[in-house]
């Protein structure tokens, strides 16, 4: 068993408005000289530390936990799960 850091990013599905991201873009970033930026999306990240046999199992286990406990609301959010060595 090894220890992994698993990052769970929860964000709105495409097409669902993210007024916080839009405000950061329009009222902060684009008010400066950063016209190359076209989009900012806010998200919530949960960082899990987990003991598992490999990266794949760590990812699967964390995804199962997220689904079982409804860590995200599937009506409106999607999750991305990234695994890193501890």
């Amino acid at each position, binding site marked *: 068993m090894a220890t992994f850091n698993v990052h769970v990013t929860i964000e*709105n599905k495409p097409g*669902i*408005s993210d*007024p*916080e991201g839009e*405000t950061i873009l329009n009222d902060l970033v684009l008010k400066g000289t950063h016209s190359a930026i076209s989009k900012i999306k806010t998200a919530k990240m949960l960082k899990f530390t987990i003991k598992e046999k490999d990266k794949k199992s760590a990812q699967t286990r964390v995804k199962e936990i997220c689904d079982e*406990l*409804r*860590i995200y*609301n599937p*009506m*409106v*959010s999607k999750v991305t799960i990234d695994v890193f060595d501890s």
Partner: protein
Amino acid sequence: MKIGVIVFPGSNCDRDMYHVLTDVFKLDAEYFWHDKGLPKNIDAVILPGGFSYGDRLRSGAIAAHSPIIKDVKKMAEKGIPILGVCNGFQILVEAGLLPGALLKNTSLNFMCKWTSLIVENNKTPFTNKLKLHQKIPIPIANGEGRYYVDDETLKKLKKNNQIVFRYSEVVNGSSDRIAGVCNEDGNVVGMMPHPERAAESEINPIDNKPSSLIFESLLNTIGVKN
């Protein structure tokens, strides 16, 4: 006849709700702490507003896993009237008893103001004394009150007559101006506005009668004469 008012860590409208049920409508109500079960002789259940678990993760997401929710689900299946107000609505959604999601208001502000509702379904246990399309002056007080459903679910809600209340104006960016919905059977109702803050003339500057009809509908449903 007994009505259960469920109290979660962080509920803060439980006493207002209890006051309206007992002092205004002379009902037998009892508080139930979230980590225990509900007795079998409960005739209706109300999940009050507040900030259960400090809205951690997102509104209602943690309270939806409280032990008492298992009994709430059993009662929902039996057809017992269940009302979630504000955070109570968010908890019912997160527990899967009602469809959708409640997102941050488009304004990103906590909104505390008077608005009005339009009754879209007067067949539920909490709306049967109201007239269809009746206007209800009522306050809202929420930060995550923007009700969201995808197009497919919205169609289903319309088809099954599950939209119970709409705002009379654009308030917070809710899908189709939805302020309250019910489950397919109609016995579980969730709403963001606060009828318990509008049912008495002393605290309602406009007209307390429509809001009090929400409670009178419940009296009517469970067979209590007021």
